[in-house]
């Protein structure tokens, strides 16, 4: 079990109460839509239904992390893969390679040197933290409803879905996860932390109808996807 996982439960009770570093909130600008402009979903349910109907997703992304400890944001680029029933593979290609693979039962890290797997069944608190994005992309209303207060707003062809954690320890670490887009496409995924740190992931090129072959599923999502 790594520190990253082990300390999660502690952080909520100990660190959040400690002095949080000052942080500059990022000014998030939505990027260009990833699909042809269509009318946005009329409601959150409609948006989640659309996600649920998505066979798979492959998207290039650029992530910008604004962290209070750092003078300038950290920028990374890579590719995101998602398929049902809740398999996510996130590969960072620059500035240094890293991988995260999430299945319904495991979380796997690879930082270019060492690989580590965490059993999510053993840590329901960590599972919530790790799988929240997966639930959103899978349109899993039942799972999301138990863990988040969700809201949805539409402004012309632009929409924003906001998921605010309502259970500890996640609500002590994360203020909200926001998805925004134009029409039916997702443009940005923003994670706002209670410390003020913000991570904005811009989707620059997405295929929301991606179908993965068996070999691809194993290669990208691991043996558990068989």
């Amino acid at each position: 079990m790594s520190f990253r996982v082990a300390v999660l439960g502690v952080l909520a009770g100990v660190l959040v109460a400690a002095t949080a570093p000052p942080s500059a909130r990022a000014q998030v600008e939505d990027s260009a839509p990833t699909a042809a402009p269509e009318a946005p979903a009329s409601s959150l349910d409609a948006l989640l239904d659309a996600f649920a109907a998505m066979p798979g997703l492959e998207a290039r992304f650029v992530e910008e992390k604004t962290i209070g400890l750092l003078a300038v944001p950290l920028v990374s680029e890579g590719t995101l893969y998602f398929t049902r029933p809740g398999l996510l593979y996130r590969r960072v290609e620059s500035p240094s390679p890293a991988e995260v693979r999430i299945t319904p039962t495991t979380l796997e890290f690879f930082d270019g040197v060492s690989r580590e797997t965490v059993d999510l069944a053993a840590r329901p608190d960590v599972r919530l933290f790790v799988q929240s994005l997966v639930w959103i992309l899978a349109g899993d209303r039942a799972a999301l409803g138990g863990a988040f207060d969700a809201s949805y707003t539409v402004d012309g062809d632009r929409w924003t879905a906001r998921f605010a954690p309502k259970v500890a320890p996640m609500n002590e670490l994360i203020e909200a996860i926001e998805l925004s887009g134009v029409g039916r496409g997702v443009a940005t995924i923003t994670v706002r932390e209670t410390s003020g740190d913000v991570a904005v992931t811009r989707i620059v090129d997405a295929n929301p109808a991606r179908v993965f072959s068996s070999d691809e599923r194993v290669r990208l999502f691991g043996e558990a996807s068989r």
Partner: protein
Amino acid sequence: MTEVGGRSVRRAAWLAGASMVALACFVALRFSATADIVAFMPDGDDRQVAALARLVADSELGRSMVLMVGAPDTDQAVAAARAIETRLIQDPRSRDAFAALDGEPPPDIDRALWELYHDRRLAFVARTPDEAAARATSEALAEAANRLKRELANPMSTLIARVAPSDPLLTMPDLYDELHSSLGGGVSLRDGRFVTEDGHALLFAATRAPAFDATAQRPLLDAIADAFAAENAEAGGTLTLDTSGVNRFAAVTASAVEGDVKRVGVVSSVALLALLFALFRSPRVVVVSALPVVGGVVAGAAATLAAYGRIHGVTLAFGASLIGVAIDYVVHLLCHHAIAPAQSGPRATLDRIWPGLATGAVTTLVGFVALAGSSFRGLQEVALFAVVGISAALGYTRWLLPALLPQVLPASRLRAALARVLAVALSKLRAQRGIAVALLLASLALGTFGLSRAEWGAGLADLGDLDPDLLAEDDRVRSRVARFEQSRFVFAEGATVDEALEANDRVADALRAAVADGELAAFRSAATFVPSPARQRAVAEAFTSAPNLRDRWSTAFVEAGFRPEAFGQFTQALAAPVAPLTWEDVMESPLASMARTFRADDDGRVYFVTFLLDVSDADALAARIADVPGATWVDQPAAMARAGAAVRARTFELFVAGLVAVLLTLVARYRSPRRVAAAFLPAVLGALAAVGALAVAGLAVDLIALTALLMVVSMGVDYGVFLADSDADPDDEIATLVGVFVACGSTVLGFGLLAMSAFPMLRTIGVTAAAGVVACLLVAPASLILLGNAREGEHR
């Protein structure tokens, strides 16, 4: 017998009977048996290794168990393990027997780790002061800044970002990872419960009673078996249970020993009583004749319990064997009382044969007294049991038996027939000396064959073969859970906890160098989570006192893109004193159950044990540890082999010394080379024949065999002495021959059954003694005839 003499005999009998009852009560109240192999570790050479090995055996480590539950899938295994744990907690046999029973990590362990270490993180910034100083160089600080930046780029940076303001060197994450790997190699969690990588659920347990306390361990093991059986029945027989623990081997061994000893005791007793009844046709005689034997065993047991607090299984086996030795005296008296009785009754008969009886007993005692010089506590126990038991049996024969025997024994057809047959056989032997020569040569040939083919056992490893099924089960668990070596350790020692922890730090330093040099794969040490207070202070001091640390740290982190003002908690900590973590702090935390397995106290000293993984160069490791003050390298197999060789040699010396002592006793008694030879030759040839029988049976001449040989010599001398003492009178001679024959038969009955034991120690005793005494029986009259008896001497 005069009236005064009669009163004196009765008074002696009453006193003897009262002493027997008192000793029996003492034994009944204090009886406690053990199969602790540690009793057979030497106290001489390798004394420290033996002491530390005992420490491991008696420590919580030695009391630990792992229960591994298998099922068609991991979730079922986890549920079954949870249910078994519940059953064990509810079962009164196991509820109080477990000092710990854990199927999951201690609650709040992560919080406990944080609270224990966060404020002391600068004392854990490195393992040694030198490493701490190295972490404070500008280059190392620059690398620390870059590492933090890389970590912050990871998806889980939320957590790192929370820790970094107080811990930019990421000491806490590193410590967490190291501690968690210390908590259990090969073990992960499923649904919050311990599981193996291949999906077995685990229960870690520690028993309150020492592993070798078979009496306490048996009910606990039964409770585990019952809990599993009940759960498996509910699961339709789909579950498996593999268990690891020294206590299982101890319980099985103790059961085997006790079972065999009980069988031998019951069967040989019944057979002996039947034989005595057939020979003497008197229930009174049968009952009375058992008293010296029973009294001898009771006295031996009482002495052993008084001296050691419990009796080893081997000593018990010798106790059963005592029946074969002590009954010789009774049979000798009964045969003379029946075949060549004194006019005035059994007391007078006893007085006539007493010199022979006493000489036989003294030679036996001399043989066993030699054993007391052994460096094995177990053999010293055997010597005490035998010397006291035989002395008591002889005493009861002299002072109790005559008062209880009838004046005249009823006629017996079997006795008469046996006397006739043996008289004929003896006269044929006298007439055809070639047969006697052939018997001696046959014994000599068997002995020569035995000496040429004998396998000289180490003396220790042969003492207890481990049950192969249990061993395989143990391996199944260990291969998944704890692959650390079970017989090689490093001990750190000190007069106080802090002193022992300082030695433990030095051991960890040496072992890290050994790992780097490929001498072992890894090790598990308390130094990981609780270095000595002195080491913690030194590490913190080495880091925080580095010149211009704060400025250089700030420069390095600014160059990496950080805002130094965000790390106020860290810069404040650099100036604050560090209160070291103490052993007491750890023992008051949820880490206590894990920490306890590293410590053992003995005789006012504190020890910390370090566990080793995959030792590839034991010699280099031993040499490295030898240079560490306060550290001891414990290689049990090597120490046992060294000790075994030394002890076997020592026991052989004792055996020879015993022979010499027996010889000197005979010289003092007879002062005649012919008679000394007649009394001594059967013993020597009997022992040689026993060595031959061991070779034929494929058994090693080990420590136990040597001890049994000593007993053969003692009994062989008995036979020789009895015959040598009685050959002046034909009736006495026939009475003695019948007595020797019956005594031999009774010994073979007892020892023959031991030879069929599944327990190697008992089997060796049985084969050695049975073959030896039979050879003694055949050689004793043959050698007497060849050397010429008293009457022939008179004729010449």
